[in-house]
């Protein structure tokens, strides 16, 4: 009996992991497929451009997020200046902004016809070409947009390490005559490097995964290339091959992140956390610190949010109609469904790991949760190819045996989309649920049993109440991520099925920026939920910030 249960557990975990890794395996194996003529053409023409653009974009965003993330993390963890306590959580707000939405608002504001340039022309009487103004829809613009919203990854991990590890050593270094700057370069930064690199690799994963910003700015990178090959050329093999190239970069980042994270753990000194005697900043220095923290918050959140609100006020009466509510309902149903399924799966895998620890389980769970790093475009292509194949098989079977066509069962329906969301976001719910499960120590199970609880009673009286909050958190985070998701939804959505993100993207692409604002603003408002939650956890656990994980 016991053997059978453990057998079932183990194999259902391995099976789940296998099913979830179908898209990634599909893409990875497409490397070995014989390329068609298009592929040859692509490698000769656009591929070098995609490659160099992706590299330039990643380097730029890397530098941008590092500068903003590290400086703000350092200032908010070791210095005292006006507004510091508020900046600790304000600096997280840009996380609520999808990069593509920031891109629309900046384009609207700073384009030739936008309010900023118009005002300059009105004041000065200049006309077009009389003055220089940086082009927003450019590589530089894309780097700026992505840096504004992705720096919180570096900030979060950097700050927790500065607080957690550097406090003791920083005090030692102060007694050894190190000022703030020397202490930063010689002690704190080298210590925090693994954590910062882990944050950086997360930001770069998002950069490589971005589709909305680069496609809106017309920059040819891998994600936009996959789209063009898929929809423009209709060449699925070539799209999959291109996706596999992108996968190669992503895997490099995953390895970088995992290695850095393990190093960061290694550096953890186990000493109790103390309050660091902060450097008090006054006068000019305080202003500088205020500006360093204030500018990213302003540019990454308040300015675009204000622009969206202004547009929304102008256009909402036209935009909020039955169609809009249909979008909201579609988005909510998709997001809630995906969140629910991914949390249930996460609970299943988390319990599996608890009940059946072992190599097979751990490898399976690792594989199942690799999707967080894989761009939505890649996952979408990896989902649709096998699903279309299965549909074809079923259809031809039905045709030959019953003379009826079954049509599309998996590929053209919400099933494919849900599956893609699961692959992409399972890791997030899994991590949250696992951290909840970790808090239920095995001895609590034993305690409950020694107090007369049968296993089922233990589940209802101890586990469920204790898991409630982390389960809800996981639900919320996945919900919001699905709401924001763009590229996989664009590729996999059933015909004529729209979501808020898709609608915002379509309207913006049609240069109807103001009209896109209601949908965009809805996404941002919902996206604020997990950010508020995260900032609460940060300020609640002042001395415990080390536990805040992304």
């Amino acid at each position: 009996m016991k053997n059978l249960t453990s057998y079932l557990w183990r194999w259902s975990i391995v099976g789940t992991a296998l099913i979830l890794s179908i898209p990634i395996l599909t893409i990875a194996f497409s490397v070995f497929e014989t390329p068609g003529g298009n592929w040859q053409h692509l490698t000769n023409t656009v591929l070098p451009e995609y490659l160099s653009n992706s590299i330039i974009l990643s380097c730029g965003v890397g530098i941008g997020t590092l500068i903003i993330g590290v400086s703000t993390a350092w200032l908010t963890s070791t210095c005292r200046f006006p507004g510091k306590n508020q900046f600790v959580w304000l600096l997280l707000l840009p996380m609520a902004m999808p990069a593509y939405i920031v891109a629309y608002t900046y384009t609207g504001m700073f384009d030739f016809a936008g309010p900023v340039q118009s005002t300059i022309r009105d004041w000065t009487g200049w006309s077009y070409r009389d003055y220089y103004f940086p082009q927003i829809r450019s590589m530089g613009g894309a780097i700026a947009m992505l840096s504004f919203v992705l720096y919180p990854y570096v900030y979060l991990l950097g700050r927790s390490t500065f607080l957690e590890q550097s406090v003791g050593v920083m005090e030692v270094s102060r007694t050894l005559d190190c000022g703030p700057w020397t202490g930063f370069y010689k002690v704190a930064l080298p210590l925090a490097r693994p954590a910062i690199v882990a944050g950086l690799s997360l930001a770069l994963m998002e950069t490589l995964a971005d589709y909305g910003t680069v496609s809106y700015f017309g920059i040819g990178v891998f994600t936009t290339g996959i789209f063009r090959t898929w929809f423009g050329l209709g060449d699925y093999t070539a799209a999959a091959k291109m996706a596999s190239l992108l996968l190669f970069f992503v895997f490099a980042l995953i390895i970088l992140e995992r290695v850095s994270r393990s190093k960061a753990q290694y550096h953890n000194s186990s000493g109790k956390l103390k309050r660091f005697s902060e450097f008090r900043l006054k006068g000019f220095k305080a202003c500088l610190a205020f500006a360093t923290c204030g500018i990213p918050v302003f540019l990454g959140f308040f300015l675009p949010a204000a622009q969206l609100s202004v547009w929304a006020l102008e256009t909402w009466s036209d935009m909020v109609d039955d169609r809009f509510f249909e979008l909201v309902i579609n988005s909510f149903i998709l997001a809630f469904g995906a969140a629910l399924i991914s949390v249930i799966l996460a609970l299943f895998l988390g319990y599996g790991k608890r009940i059946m620890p072992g190599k097979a389980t751990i490898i399976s769970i690792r594989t199942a949760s690799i999707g967080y790093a894989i761009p939505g475009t890649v996952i979408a292509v990896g989902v649709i190819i096998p699903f279309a194949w299965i549909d074809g098989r079923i259809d031809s079977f039905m045709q030959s045996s019953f003379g009826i066509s079954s049509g599309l069962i998996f590929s053209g329906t919400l099933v494919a989309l849900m599956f893609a969301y699961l692959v992409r976001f399972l890791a997030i719910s899994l991590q949250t649920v696992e951290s909840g499960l970790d808090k239920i120590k095995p001895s609590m199970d034993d305690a409950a049993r020694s107090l007369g609880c049968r296993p089922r009673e233990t589940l209802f009286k101890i586990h469920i109440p204790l898991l409630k909050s982390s389960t809800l958190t996981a639900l919320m985070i996945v919900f919001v991520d699905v709401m924001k998701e763009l590229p996989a939804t664009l590729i996999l959505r059933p015909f004529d099925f729209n979501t808020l993100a898709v609608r915002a993207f379509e309207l913006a692409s049609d240069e109807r920026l103001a009209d896109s604002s209601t949908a965009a603003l809805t996404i941002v408002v919902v996206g604020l939920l997990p950010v508020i939650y995260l900032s609460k956890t940060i300020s609640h656990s002042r001395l415990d910030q080390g536990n805040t994980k992304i």
Partner: protein
Amino acid sequence: MKRLEVKKLDFAYGRNQILFEFDFSLEESQIGCLLGPSGCGKTTALRAIAGFENPTKGEIILNGNKLNSSKIFVEPEKRQIGMVFQDIALFPHLSVKENIQFGIRSLSQNLRDKRSNELLDLVGMSEFKKKYPHEISGGQQQRVALARAMAPKPSLLLMDEPLSSLDEELREQLAREIRLILKQEKVSAILVTHDQNEAFAVGDHICVMHQGRVQQNDSAYNLYHHPLNRFVAEFIGEGTLLPGVVADEGTIATDLGEIKGNLPESCKHQDKVDVLIRPENVILANDNENKVVITARYFRGSSYLYTLKTNSGADLLCFLSSSESLQIDQTIGVHLQIEKPVFFSRS
């Protein structure tokens, strides 16, 4: 009838055998201790009694009822055995009072409140009954855990290193308190610990374990004064083993003269033996011809603990009042005062 009897228990994780013929018994309202270094199998023995582990061989009998054999295995929730855990394991979502009432949830509200108030009083936590576990200190948490385990009036209470997560100062005080609480409730209990002072403070009798085997199950006095083997002699208390040779007329010749005692007949002339010397056996006697050199000195409040070296290089320990202080490298004369020598043959 004995409260608990454990007979020839074997336990193994795969090929790794943890317990070898573990025997143990406990009378009504008695407190037993399992004492030993980490990895000696004491926690496994406790978990087997509680029903969290299934032993490969042997019997566990509680109140005359067999809890396990090749056919039966009574589940832990049916054993009426309470347990206190090393990591305390209070339920974080329940208040102090709710934690204590968890095991008596089938009683009526009245009886539940009566019992929990009684226990809150006993462990001195009445004023904290509405608090949650994270709002009280480690020592208070462990008191609540003790009350929670005692609430259903278990036939047997097991405590797995209950004090090891607490600060040192608190540990001794709480150990004495636990003994009083257990005695007041007349609970039969087993305490697992690696700390002999804790075992001495709490237990009526102590079972010393090493490498999965029982070494000696005895009173604290006997463990100290009549250890049965080298392991117990070295593990319990302070002391050293002084090499010697069996001479004629039932005496042992050592660096510090002859030690007289009733030697068993198995000891033959010229056998090499080690004699257990406790610090209190070494008496300062400057006129004595047996000289030793002081190698180190540790302040212990009322006395100094000295380490001494004999001519042939054997170490000794010795307490002397801290009012007179001797210097390191000083040579002093000592003599041994031993009523019943404890010795082990060297083979």
